[in-house]
């Protein structure tokens, strides 16, 4: 009871100190443990609202949603956690569970393109730092090579060559991340049932129906509607409110 009061007081604040954020996180974990999923979700969402993000909070929120049966939000937050962490075993396992409970079965072409899989499997931060370190370090060693006396500069030359060569794949990976980020927009169906129509209008014919938890690609938007593409290539217009961007 006292803990609940403290949690309520902390949740109502506009700003959290790191210690308060850790306390909220712990309280939310405890709420999950006693199956009070509503309180747990509220705690994690407050942390996100106050800028305390990261794969841990997103994973716990997604797992709580999954435990409480909210499939759409579960997949949404777990996908966000996967992006934030650059892939992790527990995130993947819970995502597999969530997809197993999903109502929609997409027939054919369910696998994501290579570039997207590559981007999901790697961390953009690590790739960018690798590029930066190898390129700048290689350049610096090359300069050093220029100023060192002949006979005492071979090591600098070899090291510079190695770094500059390793900068090539790192640069390609960063380019892939940048390309996917700029061109591929993905979302998750969060509405329990969402009608996908042939045109962006309420009166348009319904092409098919999708359900909570389905991951789709967002192509373009028009008014209240957004054009979605299923992994097998099916495309239609769905109401924007029923889809959340990852």
């Amino acid at each position, binding site marked *: 009871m006292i803990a609940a009061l403290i949690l309520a007081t902390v949740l109502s604040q506009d700003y959290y100190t*790191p210690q308060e954020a850790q306390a909220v996180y712990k309280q939310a974990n405890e709420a999950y443990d006693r199956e009070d999923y509503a309180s747990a979700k509220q705690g994690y969402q407050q942390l996100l609202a106050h*800028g305390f*993000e990261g794969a841990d909070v997103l994973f716990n929120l997604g*797992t709580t949603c999954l435990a409480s049966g909210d499939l759409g939000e579960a997949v949404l937050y777990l996908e966000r956690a996967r992006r*934030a962490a650059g892939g992790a075993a*527990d995130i993947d396992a819970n995502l597999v*569970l969530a997809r197993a409970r999903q109502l929609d079965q997409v027939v054919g072409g369910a696998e994501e393109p290579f570039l997207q899989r590559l981007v999901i499997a790697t961390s953009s931060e690590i790739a*960018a730092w690798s590029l930066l370190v190898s390129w*700048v370090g290689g350049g610096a060693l090359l300069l050093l090579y220029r100023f060192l006396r002949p006979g005492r500069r071979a090591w600098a030359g070899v090291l510079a060559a190695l770094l500059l060569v390793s900068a090539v794949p790192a640069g390609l990976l960063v380019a892939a991340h*940048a390309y996917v980020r700029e061109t591929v927009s993905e979302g998750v169906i969060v509405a329990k049932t969402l009608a996908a129509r042939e045109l962006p209008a309420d009166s348009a014919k319904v092409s098919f129906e999708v359900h909570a938890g389905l991951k789709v690609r967002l192509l373009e938007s028009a008014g209240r509607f957004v054009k979605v593409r299923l992994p097998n290539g099916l495309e239609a217009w769905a109401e924007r409110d029923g889809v959340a961007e990852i």
Partner: protein
Amino acid sequence: MRRTGRALGSLAMLLTSAAALADVEFYQRADRNEVGLDDTFRLTIVVSDAPDSSNLQFPSSNDFEILSKSQSSQMSYQLGGGASGVLKRTQKYVLLMRANRTGDLTLPPSVLTIHAKSYRTEPVRITVKKGHLQDPRAGAQRGSSFPDPFRRFPFPSVPGFDDEEDSLPDVDVPRSESDLFLRASLDRDEVYVGDQTTLSIHIFSRVDLSSVDAVTMPKLDGFWSEDLESPSQLTGEQKVINGIPYRAYLLKRRALFPVKPGTAKIGSAEADITTGFLFAGRRVHRVGNELSLKVKPLPPGAPPNFSAANVGRWRISTEVAQGQLQLGQPASVKVILEGKGNLKNIVLPSLSGPASLRIYDPTTSDKMANSKGKVGGRRTQEYLVMAQQTGSFTLPPLSFPFFNPETGRYEVVKTEPLTLTVLPGPEGSNLLAQGPSGAKPDGVSAKNVLAAGGLRPLRYQAHFTQARPPLWQRRFFVPALLAPIGAWLAIALIGFVRARLTEEDETSLKRKQARAARRRLAAAEKLKLAGKPAAFFGEVEKALIQFLEAKLGGPLAGLTRDALDARLHAAGASEDRRMEILRVLEACDLGRFAPGADPSSAGAGSGDPSTALRYARGERGADSASSPYARGEREARERVLDSAAAAMEGWESR
């Protein structure tokens, strides 16, 4: 529905034996729970469908004494859906009792023995105080609007019969249709939401009834209702209203559970009734009275997870068929709720357990048990629990909060936690059974099976980060990437500029070389004093050659004296100048390679007679009076040095 108004006595006698086999209803109750030592109270014992051979023992206690006993019996016969009917015989015993001492006393149960089987009633708790206490029921009786002589009918000397809860209601007789009218009544005027009140509809008649052809129940909007009694046969009871004897026939009795607070209205019931017999019969239509009921809201302070429909008196329990099972074998867990209240509207808590146990949706079965006009019963939810791995798992206790209208408070009943022990799967035991002499074969010992699956647990530690754009979109990234290229370009540019800035023309270069030659000559002057003639002459020669290279533009080292002379000539040097230079060079050669020779003799062997002659006439001629060595080497070196300096200066001033 058609009802007949005559009791079929003969048929009833034939079916007496069948009635004996029916379930026995047996209970006792006191008319007061609090009495004085000077007061009496009545204990009513009711036995239904007990055979004649049964034996009833009244409660016996030293704390109480029985002042008088009375007995009555009532028989009714109901036609069922089939051909046979049910005869019901009810016997009532009323004991007039008095307490012997004060305190919270317990009246022991009565015992009914039927064919060596004993039935016991519940004991009755009575608080006894000193003196005389007011009977709470006496006032109510005195406040009745009209006396009811029938209250003691048909046993006027037997008290207690009029205390039964299913006693007929007090009614007002309509001015018209006073010989046959329809009346509805509620057993309580004020209830909580979800609590039970019982609606009874009677026909009061002073004429013979043939049948009731149709009964229209009032609309029961705002109520959840449950049928308690719908007699297929009219059974009349005598009732005297305003001194006029009536027969009262029960048409319907329903339990009502209001679903919202406020004042609930219940409309009129209607019935088509046929009076008289055969050709003298007459059909009339009667409309009953309206009723109102005050429904109180549930008080605040409900416990967590309370459902508004959970009103009554309940107890909850769990049962598991076997606490120890093998992997792959399902366990049946029953959650049982029993008590009084609107069972069909009750919301039971769901069974939950650890992720290692898969709990399937339950099957629900209700068994209604209406006792003494109160709805209740038993709800059983049976869960199928399938273990996903071996181990010992605990199903947490279930809490069931409800509102008890009798106490006016919320109560929470709980189950005990259940422990399930899951042993390894059956394949292990099958293999063990095949082993010789029951020994455990190698490699087939029971395994603790840990199957994958289920939700991965939460992350205990949090590492918070803030949402930021990717690294390549931050300001420093592109400049940092371009920095090495910029550095290389900058260094190349600096080198180029520096090269341009340090570029020299031929004149300045020659001037520089001439200056260097002079510096060299100055250095040679130091060697002159150091006593190193070879080094001295070498430096003088190099200085002079370097000077000439600067002036003539091109390498001169290694040229013969003739070739050098030709270059000097070609460069426009005068003959004296050329001779002077050649002479100095000759003297240097002598000084370097023939240190013992007199350098002043240089030019004698040069092949150029004029040069040698001039040299001899010059410096040497002046010193000829003395010995060559007498003038000393030092002087010779001074002369060479002076000659070289003069040659250079002469060239500059040319």
